[in-house]
C-alpha cells in the first residue's frame, strides 16, 4: 500500500467507526471496497492487517458500537470477507473477529439485522470469504448455512437472490474438494456441508409451498448454469425424480423456474450422461400450459444436440397457436396446414379464446419465438415456410378485420384481435423474418398485399407502420431478381408502383413518427436498389423525391435528419432531381449541396447537422459527382462549418471526413501506420486517391500538404486536438499521427523548425490548450505544419487521452482524502467556516 494511504488510513477508520460522523456517500464505501480488493489481490492480506492495525480495530469498534449506521456495518462485513478470503488471514481473524461478525453473536441476532443492507453485507462478506476449506468448516461451525437457507425467502429480493447464489457457491466449493470425480447419487461420500444443502434443496422441492419450490429450482438453475464439475451429473441423477414429481401436480408449481432449470440442465454436461433428461423435457412440454411451454420449446429447439422426437414435439408446441388461427380462419378445409393436417390442440384453442390478454400473450410469444428460430442453423427442418407465411398473413388480416371467418371460433378470434397493435407488431416482425426464406408465388403475393393493406390503412398506428415498412423492406430486398439481369422481378415492380403513392402519402402524414419511418424506408430502399432500373423508373415517376426534399424543412428535427440522409442517398444515385434544364445540367444536385450546407450551418438541432456530416463523408468517400468537381472547396467549406459546431459529434464527424480526404490525398494507411481508426477499404473510382499512391514521392506529398493547408484542415485538426470533448481530441490525435507517419519518410526536421512561423503556431497552440481558442492560426505553410507536428508529443497526448477522464481523481489517495474532507477531518475546510 502506498505510504500516503497508510498514513491516511487510521484517520479514515476512526471516521468510519464514529457514529457522529456519518459517511454521506455510499459510492465512497464501494470504491473503498474495490480498492481493498485490488490491494489484497496484489499482496498478502495478513501483512496488510499487521501493517495497518487500524483496520482490525475498525472491525472491532464497529462490532462494539451500538448506533452505527447499517451501511458501515454492511461495509465492515464485506471488508472482513475480503481480508478473510486468504486462508492465512482467515486464520488470523478466525479466533475472535469472524465469529463475532458472522456468527450468532454478531449482527445476526441484533436490531441491525432488520436492515436489508446488513443482511446483504453479511451474505456478500461470506461469499468473498468462502474460498478455502477452512471457510467451509467455519461456516459449518457458526451455523451460517441455516441462516442462508432462511434468507432465501427474504423480503428483499436482492438479499434472497444473493442467498441463493451463496448456496451455489458453497456447494461448488465443497464439491470442488481434492480429487472428486463423479459422485454417486447416494452421495454418502459427499461433504457434510454439501449434503446439508442438497437435503435442503430436496426438502424444498417436496414442499407444498410454491415459493420454496421456486427457490430450490432457482438454486439448481444456477448450479447447472455455472458449475462445471462432474458432480453436477450425480446431483441431477439424485434430484431428477423430485423434479419430475413436480409435473404430477396440477397446476405445475413454479413453472417458469422449472423451465429455466430444465433448459439449464439441458445445456450442461448432464445430457451426455443421462438420457432420461429428454424424457423429462418431453413430459414437461406436455404438462405445461401452452403459454408456459413456449419458452421451453424454444429453448429445446435452440439446443445443438437433442433427439429429433423431442424437437418435433417442441416445434409442434410453437406452431400450435398459429395452427389454431389458421384452422379458425379457414374458409374451407384446405391443404394440410402447419401440423400436417392434425387438428389444433383444444387447450391452445381454449387459451386463445379465454381472454384477450391470454390470446394476445400467446400469439405474440409464438410469433416472437418462431421469428427468433427462423434464422438459426439448427431450426427445424423441413421449415414450414408456406403455412407460416399463411399464418402470419391470416393473423394480420384478423387484426385488421379484413378477413371474414365463417366459423364461430374464427369470429371470436377476429373480435379479440381486431385492432390489436401488439399482435400486429409481432406478426409484422415475424413476417419480416420469414422474408429470408422463399415461398410459393401465391403466398408472396398475399404477403405483398397484406403489407400494402397495412401501409395504406389509416388505422395503422405509427409503430405498426414502422414495422410494416421494415417488413416491406426485407421482402423487397429478398425478392428474386429477374433471371439474367440484376433488376427487380415484374411482381416486385408492380408492388413498388403501388407502394410509392402510399409512401408519398405517408411522407405527408401529420404524425412525425410516420414521416420518419417513411424516410428511413426510402433511404434503405435506395441504398440497396438505387442502381436497379425498375426501382429508379418507379421512383422518378413519383413525387417521392420532391417530397423528401421538402421534408428538409420539417419542423421535427428527427424528420429533418432522416430527410437529410434520404436526400443524400437519393442524390448519390442521381435520383433526387427532376430532369434538370438542358442549359444548367446538374443544377438541382448542386442546390442540394448548398441546401445541406445551409442545414449544417443553420439548423438549431444536432441530429440534422450530424446527418449532413455523415452524408458529406459518404459523398466524399464515394466520389459523389458534385464533390468530385471540386473536392478541395467542398472539404474547406464543410470543415469550416463543422469546426464551429457546438455538437461534438458533428466535430468528430468532421474529423472523419478529414480522414477520408487525407486517405484520398495520401493514399490509405499502410502497415507503418500506428493509428487505430479504420479507413475505408477501397477508395471509390474517380477520387484523388488514385492520383496519389501510398508511398507518395516528396513532391506529391508537398502538393498534398499544400492542399491540406488550403482547406485549413490543420487549423481544424489542431483545434480539435484540444477539444473539451475527449472523443474529438482522440480522433484528431489519430488523424495527426497518421499524417505525421505519412510524411515522416519524406520531410526533414530542419526545413522549417526554427522559423518564426513555427514559434507563433506553437504559441497559439499553447494558448488553445489552455482554453483560449479565440485566436485563429492563420494560413500555415506546409513546412511549419510538419515542424509543429513533430514538436507536439502526439503519442503522449494519445496516452493521456486514452486514460479515463477521472483518472487523476480516481487514485486511492484521492479517495481517502475526499472521504476525510467530506467529514471535515482534513482541517483545510475548517477555514471556510470563518
Amino acid at each position: 500500500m502506498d505510504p500516503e494511504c497508510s498514513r491516511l488510513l487510521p484517520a479514515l477508520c476512526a471516521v468510519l467507526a464514529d457514529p457522529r460522523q456519518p459517511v454521506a456517500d455510499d459510492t465512497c464505501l464501494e470504491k473503498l471496497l474495490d480498492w481493498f480488493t485490488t490491494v489484497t489481490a496484489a499482496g498478502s492480506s495478513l501483512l496488510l492487517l499487521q501493517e495497518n492495525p487500524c483496520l482490525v480495530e475498525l472491525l472491532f469498534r464497529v462490532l462494539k458500537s451500538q448506533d452505527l449506521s447499517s451501511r458501515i456495518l454492511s461495509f465492515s462485513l464485506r471488508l472482513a470477507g475480503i481480508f478473510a478470503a486468504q486462508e492465512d488471514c482467515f486464520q488470523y481473524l478466525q479466533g475472535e473477529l469472524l465469529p463475532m461478525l458472522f456468527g450468532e453473536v454478531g449482527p445476526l441476532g441484533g436490531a441491525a439485522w432488520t436492515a436489508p443492507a446488513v443482511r446483504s453485507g453479511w451474505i456478500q462478506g461470506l461469499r468473498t470469504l468462502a474460498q478455502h476449506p477452512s471457510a467451509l468448516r467455519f461456516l459449518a461451525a457458526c451455523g451460517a448455512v441455516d441462516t442462508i437457507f432462511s434468507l432465501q425467502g427474504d423480503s428483499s429480493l436482492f438479499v434472497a437472490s444473493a442467498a441463493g447464489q451463496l448456496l451455489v457457491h458453497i456447494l461448488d466449493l465443497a464439491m470442488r474438494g481434492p480429487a472428486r470425480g463423479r459422485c454417486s447419487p447416494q452421495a454418502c461420500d459427499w461433504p457434510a456441508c454439501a449434503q446439508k444443502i442438497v437435503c435442503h434443496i430436496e426438502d424444498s422441492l417436496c414442499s407444498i409451498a410454491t415459493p420454496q419450490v421456486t427457490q430450490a429450482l432457482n438454486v439448481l438453475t444456477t448450479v447447472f448454469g455455472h458449475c462445471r464439475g462432474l458432480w453436477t451429473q450425480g446431483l441431477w441423477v439424485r434430484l431428477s425424480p423430485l423434479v419430475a414429481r413436480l409435473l404430477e401436480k396440477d397446476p405445475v408449481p413454479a413453472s417458469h423456474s422449472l423451465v429455466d432449470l430444465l433448459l439449464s440442465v439441458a445445456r450442461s454436461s448432464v445430457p451426455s450422461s443421462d438420457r432420461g433428461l429428454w424424457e423429462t423435457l418431453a413430459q414437461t412440454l406436455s404438462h405445461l400450459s401452452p403459454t408456459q411451454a413456449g419458452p421451453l420449446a424454444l429453448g429445446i429447439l435452440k439446443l445443438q444436440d437433442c433427439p429429433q422426437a423431442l424437437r418435433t414435439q417442441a416445434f409442434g408446441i410453437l406452431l400450435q397457436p398459429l395452427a389454431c388461427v389458421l384452422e379458425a380462419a379457414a374458409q374451407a378445409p384446405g391443404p394440410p396446414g402447419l401440423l400436417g393436417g392434425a387438428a389444433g390442440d383444444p387447450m391452445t384453442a381454449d387459451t386463445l379464446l379465454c381472454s384477450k390478454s391470454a390470446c394476445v400473450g400467446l400469439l405474440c410469444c409464438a410469433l416472437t419465438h418462431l421469428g427468433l428460430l427462423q434464422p438459426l442453423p439448427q431450426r427445424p427442418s423441413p421449415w414450414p415456410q408456406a403455412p407460416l407465411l399463411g399464418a402470419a398473413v391470416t393473423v394480420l388480416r384478423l387484426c385488421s378485420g379484413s378477413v371474414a371467418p365463417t366459423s364461430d371460433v374464427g369470429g371470436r378470434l377476429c373480435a379479440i384481435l381486431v385492432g390489436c397493435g401488439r399482435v400486429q407488431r409481432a406478426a409484422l416482425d415475424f413476417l419480416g423474418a420469414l422474408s429470408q426464406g422463399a415461398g410459393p408465388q401465391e403466398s408472396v403475393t398475399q404477403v405483398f398485399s397484406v403489407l400494402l393493406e397495412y401501409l395504406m390503412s389509416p388505422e395503422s398506428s405509427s409503430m405498426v407502420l414502422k414495422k410494416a415498412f421494415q417488413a416491406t423492406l426485407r421482402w423487397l430486398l429478398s425478392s428474386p431478381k429477374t433471371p439474367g439481369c440484376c433488376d427487380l422481378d415484374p411482381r416486385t415492380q408492380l408492388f413498388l408502383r403501388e407502394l410509392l403513392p402510399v409512401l408519398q402519402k405517408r411522407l405527408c402524414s401529420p404524425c412525425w413518427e410516420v414521416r420518419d419511418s417513411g424516410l428511413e424506408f426510402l433511404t434503405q430502399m435506395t441504398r440497396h436498389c438505387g442502381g436497379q432500373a425498375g426501382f429508379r423508373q418507379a421512383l422518378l415517376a413519383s413525387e417521392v423525391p420532391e417530397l423528401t426534399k421538402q421534408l428538409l424543412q420539417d419542423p421535427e428535427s428527427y424528420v429533418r435528419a432522416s430527410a437529410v440522409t434520404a436526400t443524400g442517398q437519393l442524390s448519390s444515385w442521381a435520383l433526387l432531381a427532376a430532369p434538370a434544364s438542358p442549359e444548367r445540367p446538374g443544377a438541382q444536385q448542386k442546390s442540394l449541396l448548398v441546401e445541406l450546407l445551409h442545414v449544417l450551418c443553420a439548423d438549431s438541432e444536432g441530429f440534422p447537422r450530424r446527418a449532413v456530416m455523415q452524408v458529406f463523408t459518404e459523398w466524399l468517400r464515394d466520389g459523389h459527382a458534385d464533390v468530385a468537381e471540386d473536392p478541395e472547396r467542398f472539404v474547406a467549406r464543410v470543415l469550416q462549418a463543422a469546426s464551429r459546431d457546438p455538437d461534438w459529434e458533428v466535430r468528430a464527424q468532421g474529423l472523419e471526413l478529414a480522414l477520408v480526404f487525407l486517405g484520398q490525398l495520401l493514399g490509405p494507411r499502410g502497415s507503418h501506420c500506428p493509428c487505430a481508426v479504420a479507413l475505408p477499404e477501397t477508395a471509390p473510382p474517380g477520387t484523388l486517391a488514385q492520383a496519389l499512391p501510398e508511398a507518395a514521392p516528396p513532391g506529391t506529398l508537398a502538393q498534398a500538404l499544400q492542399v491540406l493547408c488550403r482547406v485549413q484542415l490543420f487549423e481544424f485538426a489542431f483545434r480539435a486536438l484540444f477539444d473539451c470533448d475527449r472523443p474529438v481530441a482522440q480522433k484528431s490525435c489519430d488523424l495527426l499521427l497518421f499524417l505525421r507517419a505519412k510524411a515522416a519518410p519524406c520531410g526533414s526536421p530542419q526545413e522549417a523548425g526554427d522559423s518564426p512561423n513555427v514559434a507563433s503556431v506553437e504559441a497559439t497552440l499553447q494558448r488553445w490548450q489552455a482554453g483560449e481558442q479565440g485566436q485563429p492560426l492563420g494560413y500555415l505553410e506546409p513546412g511549419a505544419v510538419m515542424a509543429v507536428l513533430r514538436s507536439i508529443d502526439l503519442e503522449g497526448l494519445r496516452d493521456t487521452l486514452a486514460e479515463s477522464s477521472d483518472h487523476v481523481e480516481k487514485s486511492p489517495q484521492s479517495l481517502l482524502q475526499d472521504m476525510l474532507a467530506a467529514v471535515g477531518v482534513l482541517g483545510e475546510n475548517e477555514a471556510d467556516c470563518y
Partner: protein
Amino acid sequence: MKLYCLSGHPTLPCNVLKFKSTTVMLDCGLDMTSTLNFLPLPLVQSPRLSNLPGWSLKDGNAFLDKELKECSGHVFVDSVPEFCLPETELIDLSTVDVILISNYHCMMALPYITEHTGFTGTVYATEPTVQIGRLLMEELVNFIERVPKAQSASLWKNKDIQRLLPSPLKDAVEVSTWRRCYTMQEVNSALSKIQLVGYSQKIELFGAVQVTPLSSGYALGSSNWIIQSHYEKVSYVSGSSLLTTHPQPMDQASLKNSDVLILTGLTQIPTANPDGMVGEFCSNLALTVRNGGNVLVPCYPSGVIYDLLECLYQYIDSAGLSSIPFYFISPVANSSLEFSQIFAEWLCHNKQTKVYLPEPPFPHAELIQTNKLKHYPSIHGDFSNDFRQPCVVFTGHPSLRFGDVVHFMELWGKSSLNTVIFTEPDFSYLEALAPYQPLAMKCIYCPIDTRLNFIQVSKLLKEVQPLHVVCPEQYTQPPPAQSHRMDLMIDCQPPAMSYRRAEVLALPFKRRYEKIEIMPELADSLVPMEIKPGVSLATVSAVLHTKDNKHVLQPPPRPAQPTGGKKRKRASDDIPDCKVLKPLLSGSIPVDQFVQTLEKHGFSDIKVEDTAKGHIVLLQEAETLIQIEEDSTHIICDNDEMLRVRLRDLVLKFLQKF
C-alpha cells in the same frame, strides 16, 4: 313505462318516453338522407344538370320525365329536396310535455314537431346547442330558399308508381311523409319554445320526475339526460364522446345506478379511428395542394370543422402549406367561428384555461388573423374577388344536394388534380357523388366521427352498470357489410333491448315505490313500537293529499263535534268519516305454551295437529277447532260466541297490539 320510437336513424333519434305521468320526447332528429334521392340545387345555372334526360319506364312511357331525371345510370327526383320526418302517427304529439335535446344535430326536426302537431310543451337544451342549432337550421333554410325551385314533384310518390321505379327510389320508405324544408319563421317560433339549461341543473317536471342534462363530450353544449323519480332512474345517452376534442369531457359517473339506459348516437363508422382519419385528411390535402389541385371539404358549419382547423393550424407549416388559402363558405360561417370562441364554459379544460390568459380558445382565430383562413357567407360577393387557386374550401352541405358545395363540385369535378374529402359521416359518399358522375376529381372518404365506438360502450356499460340497456336494433348485430365483426355490436348482460322505427317498447321494469311525505305534527303523534331489533312499526291514521304528483300525509281532521245547531256545514268541513280503527296485531303463538294456557283455563282433551301452514288445535270436548297459521288464526266453534270470545282473548294474550 313505455318508449315510443319515432325515428329509425340511430344517430338522429326521436323517441318518446312515458314515465310516471309525464311524456318526454328525447331528441328530435331529422333524417336528411332522403335528400340524396333529389337532384342538386346549383347556385349558378348548370347546363349539365338542366340538360339531364328525363326518365321513362321500360315500356317507353315517359309521364314521369318531368319529375325524374337520369344521370349516369341513377335516377333522381327533380324537385325541392324533402326530408324524412319522425313518425307522427304513433303517438299524439300534442300530448308531449317536454322535449329534451342532446345536441345541435339532434334538433333539426324541431320546427316540424313544435309547429305542426299541436305541441304546447317546453323544449330544454343548453345554450350552445340552441345557438349552433339555430345556425344549422338557418344555413339549411338559406341553402334551400336561395335557389327557388318552381317544381315540387309528387307523382312519383304514388305507391303504385313508386313500385315501378329503380332503386333506391323504389326502396325509399315513408315517402308520403317526406316534407319540404321549414321556413325561418317556423325556426324562430320553434326556438322560442326552448328553455336554456346548464349541465347538472335539475329541472322538475310537474313534480313527477326530474330531468338533468350532463356533459356528453361530443359537441359544444352536447348533453346526455338523466330522467329520474325518487325510486327510478332512466339515463338517455345520445351522441357521446370519450375522445379529447374541444368540448367538455363526458360525465360518466352520473350515469351510474340507472334502471334503464337508452343508448343512441354511437359512431356511424365504428371501424374508423378518428385520429387515423385526421391523418388521412391531412396527408391527402397536402398531396393534392402540392400538385396544384384544390381540395373541397363538404361539411357542416360547426363541430368537427373546429378540430380540423386546429389540426391544420399545426400541420400547414410543417407540410409547407403556409401560402395556401383556406376558405370557409357558409351563410353562418362568421357566426359559427365567433360562437365557438365565446362558449368557454362549455369547452374542455385546456381551452377554458386559455380564456384566462387571455387567448382565444380555438387557434382558428389566429388563422383568420394571419389571413390563412378566410370566411364568406357565399360564393357571391367578396369571395369571387379574393378567390385564388390552389386552395382548400370548407363548405356545406355534406349531402352535396344544396349549398355552395354544389357549385364547387361542378367547377372542380372535371379535373383529376382536385380532391373532394368527405369528413362528415352522415351521408354515403358514393350516393352523395352519384349525380356528379362521371367525375374526374379524386374522392377521399375519411369520415371523422368522434362518438362512442363499441369498445368504449362496452367499457362504459361495465362502469355504469345499468340494469337494462335499450338501443336501436342496428346496434345489436354486426353491420350488414361486416357480418363477421362480432366486435361491432353491443355486448352486455342482460342483452340489450332493441327498437326500430314506429315500435312501442314496454320498458322492462315496474315501479314499486312512491315517496310520500309525512307532516311533522302527524309524525310527532306516531308511537313506534319495536317489533324486532331495528324494526319499529306504528299505525298511521291520516289523510293522503295528492297534488302536482306530490303525496303528503296530513293529520286526520278531528271528529266533527255535534254542533246541535242548524248551521250549515261548509264544504271544507265535509270531512271523511274516520272509523275507529282496530289495533293491529303482531307476533306469533307458541303452540306448546298456548296449549298449556288452555289447560290452565280448564280445557282438556286437547289435540294438536301439524299442518303445512301451521297447527290445528282441537278442543275435542268443546268440538272446537283453532287453526293457527303464520298470518291468521281462526277459531271455529258452533254458535258459541262466549267460547269464541274466551278463546280469542287467550289467543290475543300472545300477540302484541299497536
